[in-house]
């Protein structure tokens, strides 16, 4: 590949494509970009916005100017300020969920929402104070005391008050460190005070009511939250904000592939690409040049989003393989589609599948290591301030990188006159693509190895989809899926080789190529040991997919290591013999190979268990 040629084609692609975009389309694109930007900045600045104005905080109308808690309310969109009087609040004549006076006494209205508002407001005060301290120039003034905390078991009796519809639990916290507040420093955790908040706060003396003890604004002390649930406290942790932001990375890719698919299709349908094929430039250079602007475009958008939402380099590096796979899949899809109508179907299918494949696992970022099958998980981690190890990065992105490479390599194999400009059936083109990469026996094991990313991704997807099912149901299905994927990876290119007369259709040749395909796959399969990096085999279903450590004896280990080699060779030879007999022969032999493989897997698991 010559970079100058690629750059020339890329420049041409940009200038040519620019000529095809009218002003209306540009306006729509700009509007979409703005929308994405606004959503990103909005989510970043104020969360997802789902909790905006969720709680109403009542403050005394007469004291609102001097009430330091008003700033807390106004700084957090979760709360809405309501000027009222304590009498109205206590009498139920106010819409406020909680009431706070200037001395820091806080009470809920006794409802579940009021309790949640109480907890949320305490947390908000903590954050507010923390932010104030953080920006304090004099660090020692902000944090004058170093406190060593020792947690002790204590009676939960006091917490019972919270069930009575009040925030008694909060009051109990007064004794564990949220003390020192001017509002109720003398408060106790006496459970007897729990009860109706309106009644309790009605004392108005500022002492003795633990429910009213909240941190002072500017006090910098951290109060504990009660257990009243807020949306942010859903368990297991659901990184909603990070997910929304991570999703922003995927959105532009869905649009870019539409343009990319169209430009490839344009070359084909209108036969315009024919003259490029006659020029002294290779298909690889043409494809690389045509793809580069779209890849750089996506990366540019990704980088802009990353800067806008204050992500890190990890986000960009994680988005790169996703973008590549989007483009690679679209490239192959555009080569196989026979019309723009089919291309639309293909790109929508790619959008749905890849978005789902990347997004769904990322939901479980904080739950299970399986989430790392998606690079989007790395973005979520990055946005949550977590880092990723090199192993995690490779595990998460390896299949995407290699899958993209294989798709591009196979696609370029049919980037030629005979396949670009003819209405061949799609299976015939797939066979052409595979056969285009077979120029001798040595390519057979190589292709088996190159298909490993797809097998890997397929198996991980199966694990991800099945891990929620009971093991007795999930395992047999998983074994079958594994067998089908692996046998396909070992045999489909062998079939293509026979179908396109790359090999002599004889029994001897079938045995040779079958052996090579099986051995190649065995080598590639060992790459799946990368899962060790993230501890996926700790999961039962993961064990089924990638194998347990059965023994520490070297001999046993050696046997266990090589038995799969025998299996892969035997089943690959079965499929190869069928492939040498034609399509029907291949279908029958493939089925036999899958059954043998599944039987082996079940046998091994039987022995292990």
């Amino acid at each position, binding site marked *: 590949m010559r970079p100058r*040629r690629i750059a*020339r*084609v890329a420049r*041409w692609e940009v*200038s*040519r494509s620019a*000529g*095809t975009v009218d002003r209306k389309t540009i306006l729509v694109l700009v509007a979409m970009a703005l929308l994405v930007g606004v959503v990103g900045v909005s989510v970043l600045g104020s969360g997802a916005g789902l909790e905006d104005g969720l709680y109403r905080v009542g403050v005394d109308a007469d004291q609102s100017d001097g009430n330091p808690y008003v700033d807390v309310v106004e700084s957090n969109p979760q709360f809405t300020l309501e000027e009222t009087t304590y009498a109205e609040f206590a009498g139920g004549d106010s819409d406020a969920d909680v009431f706070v006076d200037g001395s820091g006494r806080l009470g809920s209205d006794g409802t579940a929402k009021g309790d949640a508002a109480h907890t949320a407001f305490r947390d908000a005060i903590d954050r507010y104070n923390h932010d104030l301290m953080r920006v304090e120039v004099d660090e020692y003034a902000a944090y004058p005391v170093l406190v060593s905390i020792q947690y002790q078991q204590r009676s939960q009796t006091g917490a019972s008050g919270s069930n009575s519809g009040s925030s008694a639990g909060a009051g109990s916290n007064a004794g564990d460190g949220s003390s020192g507040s001017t509002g109720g420093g003398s408060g106790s955790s006496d459970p007897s005070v729990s009860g109706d908040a309106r009644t309790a706060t009605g004392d108005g003396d500022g002492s003795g009511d633990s429910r009213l003890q909240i941190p002072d604004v500017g006090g910098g002390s951290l109060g504990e939250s009660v257990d009243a649930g807020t949306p942010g406290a859903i368990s297991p942790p659901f990184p909603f904000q990070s997910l929304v932001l991570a999703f922003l990375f995927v959105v532009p890719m869905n649009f870019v592939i539409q343009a990319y698919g169209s430009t490839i299709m344009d070359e084909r349908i*209108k*036969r*315009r690409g*024919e*003259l*490029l*094929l*006659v*020029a*002294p*430039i*290779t298909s690889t250079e043409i494809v690389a040049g045509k793809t580069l602007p779209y890849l750089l475009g996506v990366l540019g958008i990704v980088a802009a989003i990353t800067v806008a939402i204050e992500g890190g380099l990890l986000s960009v590096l994680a988005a790169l393989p996703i973008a590549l796979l989007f483009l690679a899949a679209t490239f192959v899809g555009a080569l196989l589609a026979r019309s723009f109508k089919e291309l639309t179907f293909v790109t929508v299918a790619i959008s749905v599948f890849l978005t789902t494949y990347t997004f769904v696992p990322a939901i479980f970022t904080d739950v299970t290591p399986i989430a790392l099958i998606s690079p989007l998980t790395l973005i979520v981690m990055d946005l949550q301030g977590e880092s990723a190890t090199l192993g995690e990065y490779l595990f998460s992105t390896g299949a995407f990188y290699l899958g993209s490479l294989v798709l591009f390599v196979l696609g370029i194999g049919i980037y*030629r*006159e*005979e396949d670009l400009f003819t209405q061949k059936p799609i299976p015939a083109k797939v066979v052409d693509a595979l056969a285009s990469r077979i120029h001798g026996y040595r390519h057979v094991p190589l292709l088996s190895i190159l298909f490993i990313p797809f097998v890997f991704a397929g198996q991980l997807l199966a694990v991800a989809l099945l891990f929620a099912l009971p093991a007795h149901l999930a395992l047999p299905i998983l074994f079958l899926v594994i067998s089908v994927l692996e046998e396909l990876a070992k045999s489909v290119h062998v079939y293509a080789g026979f179908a396109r007369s790359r090999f002599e259709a004889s029994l001897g040749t079938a045995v040779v190529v079958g052996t090579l395909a099986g051995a190649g796959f065995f080598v590639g399969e060992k790459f799946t040991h990368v899962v060790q990096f993230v501890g996926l085999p700790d999961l039962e279903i993961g064990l089924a997919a990638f194998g347990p450590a059965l023994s520490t004896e070297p001999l046993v280990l050696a046997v266990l290591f090589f038995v799969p080699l025998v299996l892969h060779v035997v089943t690959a030879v079965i499929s190869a013999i069928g492939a040498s007999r034609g399509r029907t022969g291949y279908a029958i032999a493939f089925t036999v190979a899958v059954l043998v493989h599944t039987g082996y897997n079940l046998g091994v698991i039987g022995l292990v268990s």
Partner: protein
Amino acid sequence: MIEVQNLRKEYGGFVAVEGSSFSVDRGEVFGVIGPNGAGKTTTLKTLAGLIEPTAGTAVVADRPAGHPEMQRTLGFLPEESPLYEEMTAHSYLEFFADLYDVPGDVASERIAEALDRLDLEHRDRRIGNMSKGMKRKVAIARALVNDPEVLIFDEPASGLDPLTTNYIIDFTRELSDEGKTIIFSAHNLFHVESICDRVVIMNEGEIVARGTLEEIRDAHGGTEYHVYATVDVGGAVQENGHFRHVVDDMDAVDRIRATVEDDGGRVTDIQTHTPSLEDIFLDVAGEARA
């Protein structure tokens, strides 16, 4: 300059070209003719390196067809040459010149010269806004942008008006005079006859006739003499009240003349008929079908 040996191209079970062999000398204009589906375009695309032959070899300018160095010496004009309609003629040609590594200043001169010779105006107009004839001229200019030694023109004047067609045929002749080796395919056999030094006639994937026009005429009947007489002395066809006798040499003409006079008739006219390429083509194609 071009050497084709036992070329075979098979698509699935369909054989598009079978056992084609021919050679083209430097500076020659070589015609490839035949009915639709005869294998002409497949042959030309194989020479251009677009199609990989199933068997046989094709060598152009001493290099296998499809070799990058061979592609530098080639100018290919396909039967349909859809252009990038959103580009201007000038930017389109510049792009291809760059792909062929033509230096910028040389490319500019060459593009200007080609467009001048082709009498193409509105060079900065978008190709999509050009007429069909103008687009074809742009396509021809693109085939010349690398100053190729070999030109493959597949139906260069297909679908164009007579004026543009004649312009392109004349231009092809000029290129031939400049020493370019040209392979030329056309359905209009008059054009082939007027500019080609040698031709092959293809039918159903095979070459069924080859040689110079004279050689092909000789092989397929050569010159005929039509002797019109007032009486039929055997094998005549009646036309406008006269009997037309067709013979292929002057001795036979003399014999007919004598016989007619013996029968009391007279010879009213004698015409010399040289079969056109079209006559031969129809004859050959008809024979092949039979």
